[in-house]
């Protein structure tokens, strides 16, 4: 009973003090708002880059051409051997006939040429299309497949894929570092703003201590106040994230540069998860800032 009363009083006091010290609360709230907007941008950016990377990785395919004299038995043997490498997400066989038909459908000129071919004169090769499970070891897998009998050529755009993998790893690391750095900077900024806000209430803290308030019971209302400030400060960034991202998504029609690979993340549930993340960051940073700021006035 006594505990519940105390907790209720903490919340009441914190809410009161946000309202009573409105101008200073507003300063802290805007500080949180501005930094959270920047954090929101970097979250959106880094997740989308990560998403591009993921879709490009998923799209990496190894094309395996068989020798021209490979029989159907050879093909099924090779299929088994490829599967035994373990790094197989999806494996599709495409006979030279299918390949020819597909190409013929691409345009009229091809069609006239290809229609001249018979099964014997078809110069194309039977092939497998392999989507790998783990793109990081694609080189290794490709080399293993090259060793298989009656495999003619193996190609996966080695250089491009290798480069992309490195670039995306770097981008991912940089964006994580940026988000972390931003959060740390925000925490410092907020600590200082709240310090200013609390400075105005130095006397109140001093009196609280003099009449017998324990350090913890002084700190808690301030920390709850920080929670409120963080919550209020994250309203605008959350709105910007939700409506801004939906707008952006609609404007670009879901993809950048009209490319199937540069797809934007679909807004639902991405924006809600990001908003939740923003609110949590705001609250934690507000609470941490208040905690740090009030500590200073609790010595001696």
């Amino acid at each position, binding site marked *: 009973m*006594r505990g519940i*009363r*105390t907790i209720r*009083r903490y919340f009441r006091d914190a809410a009161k003090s946000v309202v*009573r010290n409105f101008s200073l609360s507003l300063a802290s709230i805007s500080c949180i708002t501005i930094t959270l907007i920047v954090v929101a941008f970097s979250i959106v950016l880094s997740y989308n880059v990560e998403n591009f990377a993921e879709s490009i990785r998923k799209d990496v395919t190894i094309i395996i051409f068989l020798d021209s004299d490979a029989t159907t038995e050879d093909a099924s043997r090779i299929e088994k051997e490829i599967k035994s490498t373990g790094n197989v997400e999806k494996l599709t066989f495409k006979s030279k006939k299918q390949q020819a038909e597909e190409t013929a459908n691409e345009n009229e000129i091809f069609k006239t040429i290809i229609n001249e071919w018979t099964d014997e004169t078809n110069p194309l090769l039977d092939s497998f299309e392999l989507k790998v499970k783990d793109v990081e070891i694609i080189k290794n897998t490709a080399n293993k497949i090259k060793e298989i009998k009656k495999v003619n050529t193996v190609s996966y755009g080695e250089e491009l894929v290798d480069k992309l993998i490195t670039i995306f790893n770097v981008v991912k690391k940089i964006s994580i570092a940026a988000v972390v750095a931003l959060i740390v900077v925000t925490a410092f900024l907020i600590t200082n703003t709240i310090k200013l806000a609390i400075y105005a209430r130095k*006397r*109140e803290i*001093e*009196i*609280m*201590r*003099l*009449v*017998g*308030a*324990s*350090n913890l*019971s002084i700190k808690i209302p301030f920390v709850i106040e920080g929670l409120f400030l963080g919550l209020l400060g994250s309203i605008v960034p959350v709105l910007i994230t939700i409506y801004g991202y939906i707008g952006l998504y609609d404007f670009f029609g879901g993809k950048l540069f009209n490319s199937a690979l540069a797809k934007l993340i679909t807004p639902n549930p991405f924006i809600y998860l990001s908003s939740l993340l923003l609110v949590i960051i705001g609250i934690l940073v507000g609470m941490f800032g208040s905690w740090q700021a009030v500590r200073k006035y*609790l*010595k*001696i």
Partner: protein
Amino acid sequence: MELIRIENVQKTYKNGVVALYDFNLTIKKGEFVFVIGASGSGKSTLIKMLYREEKPEKGSIIIGGINVAKLKNRKVYILRRKIGVVFQDFKLLPKLTVFENVAFALELFGYDKQSIQRRVIEVLDLVGLKNKIRQYPDQLSGGEQQRVVIARAIANNPKLLICDEPTGNLDPDTSMEIMHVLENINRLGTTIIMATHDREIVNKLQKRVILIEQGRLKKDFEKGTYYNERY
């Protein structure tokens, strides 16, 4: 029964000024003690150490079983809940009403609303301010503000009331009124230690007087007066 025992206390400030030197004092329960001395004598330091605003570097200060000299910063509140402190500059919260200022201390201890209400009215009645509970501190006179501070200090029934020049900012008539309030409280059993400069008060009340000079206990009169000492 003794309430306060101060033994071999020494306090030097960071700038090298020795405020108290090998100081010893005992105060019994229920006493009313004046602490007098010129500015810079160490009187304020002594008072501040009693409510642990300052820490001695040597010696011990035992108040009601708590060694204040060794009390950790984090645990100061344990002491402060057992004592009441009255200041020269009042230290009231300007944004709270008289009632809220007194209730403030009680709320910290987690009393329920009815008990707080009852006790606040009771102590405000005792200091003669029952009719001003809805006012804010800046609507009150200096004497009235000091009464509020006294009410706040005794709200939690402390064994000891420490007063640091409570009449320093008040005119003689108002000072005497405050002293009557304090005498009343003392009569109800609370020990009072009061630092003061006010001759008239000390001479009139005829209580125990402790004279501090240059950081040492110079004189301890059972029923002393101020005027037979030279300043």
